[in-house]
């Protein structure tokens, strides 16, 4: 190692240290401490604070409310992400040949994504209002209680989430299709390929990579989603929209069982990391064989 390299390494450490210390304190340490907290029974209002080992996890394994939350979380994630990808690709293809008003188009597209989720929650609460909501009015003056019916609440939440996050998928795909050279399409046109054939043979294969990334980002976000459920339904009716995150939050701060809530939070963490790891492995393997 030369003097220069040694000096650079020292400068690097000095420049990086403040960021790493902060991250360690604000992210890594809470991430580890949550595991320790999940092994305690800690209920401050009753002055309870004792070590219980894996008791919370054992309880969760046989807890129907927990398994219901797992099912709601996975259903919400799979349906939302699938709809976002379908609609997002459609929007990107529609925008691909846009000549005028691109800036306006992107502004309209990104507006729902940029709004605070609480604003989206309040907006959809009003749209879903049983008697004065726009949705029921457009359906011909019905009086459906979208957020109060156990069978409808989760679909209503999925709709609000898709409204807010489809633009993210659409934007990434749009940015990718803009980089495809016109010459590729001209060649296809000369070969007599129709629009659908061109999309299938050229556009979609080129979108594959960006879609894989968009799906990963969106899946991790959907697994962690909390705000919309909390504002729109609070997990109800009859726990039909209670995701793992809402279950964790209710345990932590509504019943103030800090240890038990930490255990549910730790499981959300494990689930997110597991999905990310499995996903990246699957992509790597697919790329190796392709």
């Amino acid at each position, binding site marked *: 190692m030369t003097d220069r390299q040694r000096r650079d*390494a020292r*400068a*690097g*450490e000095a*420049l*990086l240290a403040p*960021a790493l210390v*902060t*991250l360690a304190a*604000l*992210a890594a*340490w*809470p991430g580890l401490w*949550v595991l320790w*907290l999940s092994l305690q029974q800690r209920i401050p209002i009753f002055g309870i604070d004792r070590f219980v080992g894996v008791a919370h996890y054992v309880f969760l394994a046989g807890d129907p409310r927990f398994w219901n939350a797992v099912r709601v979380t996975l259903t919400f994630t799979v349906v939302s992400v699938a709809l976002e990808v379908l609609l997002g690709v459609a*929007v990107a293809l*529609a925008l691909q*040949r846009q*000549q*005028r*008003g691109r800036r*306006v*188009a*992107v*502004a309209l597209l*990104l*507006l*729902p994504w*940029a*709004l*605070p989720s*609480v*604003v989206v929650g*309040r907006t*959809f609460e*009003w*749209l879903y*209002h049983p008697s*004065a*909501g726009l949705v*029921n009015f457009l359906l011909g003056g019905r009086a459906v209680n979208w957020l109060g019916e156990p069978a409808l609440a989760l679909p209503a939440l999925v709709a609000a989430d898709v409204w807010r996050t489809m633009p993210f998928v659409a*934007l*990434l795909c749009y*940015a990718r299709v803009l980089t495809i050279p016109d010459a590729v399409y001209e060649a296809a046109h000369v070969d007599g390929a129709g629009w659908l054939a061109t999309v299938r043979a050229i556009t979609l294969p080129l979108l594959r990579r960006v879609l894989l990334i*968009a799906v990963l980002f969106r899946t991790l976000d959907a697994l962690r989603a*909390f705000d919309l459920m*909390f*504002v729109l339904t609070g997990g109800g009716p009859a726990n039909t929209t209670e995701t793992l*995150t809402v279950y*964790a*939050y209710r345990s*932590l701060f509504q019943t103030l069982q*800090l240890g038990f*809530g*930490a255990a549910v*939070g*730790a499981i*959300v*963490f494990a689930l*997110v990391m597991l999905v990310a790891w499995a996903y990246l492995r699957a992509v790597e393997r697919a790329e190796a064989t392709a």
Partner: protein
Amino acid sequence: MRERGHGRDVLVLALLAVWALPFFWQALTSLKPDSELLAVERLVTAAPTLAHYRVVFERSVMPDALRNSLGVALLTTLLALALGVPGAYALARLPVPGKRALMLGVVACTAFPQVTTVGPLFVALRALDLRDTWAALVLADTSFALPLVLWLLAGFVREIPVDVEEAASLDGAGRIGVLTRVVLPLMAPGVVSAALLVFLMSWNEFLFAFTFTATEASRTVPVALALFPGIFEVPWGDIAAASMLASLPPIVIVVALQRWLVRGLTAGALRE
């Protein structure tokens, strides 16, 4: 052919406007007088009023909340950049030992569920007596803002040609001199993009703000909006007006600062 292309452009814009309809509906609601709120069939009111905005400004906690949100989002952005810019440069350019593992750790931090860290952070902030302060929210928001800044900016730095820096260091500039005088100006567009994203995330953040605040001293806009009081009935018009105020920064960003927002959003995903 040209004419048809034009018609197609208008159709796509119209469809996107329909997609954004929930937002416009909330905007129309914010201008409807109370007497017309429940009359959904009158889609656009004949007598628009600013009464709901007056209520929000004069008789709600929104003015305090707007100040808190602006303060917390700006301070979070500043802190994340102050720590993240030098860190990202080091990650991208300097021979730091264990760099790959560090980068992986940073990416993993962006995937941390808030609901996982909210419990430990709550216990820690209570122990430090920071509950219901701006500091609590700035620190909590930095936990997701900083990994994002490090990751985004490290990518932007890698795109700056190394030659530029080598030329400067041959001229006798030290590493820090190269960073502040040569790299930083070239990083500026990336820094703007990262700053916008962090500001937006902090402005929109709800779970930490809801948990760590207790009064108007630190409650942010999303918290105030979620807790908007209704004594006998829900004040839909006031809520709509408050929603519009909460949406102002996002609107400015997607309309006026769109280029930088799009660059930041697509940078991570489209880079090889």
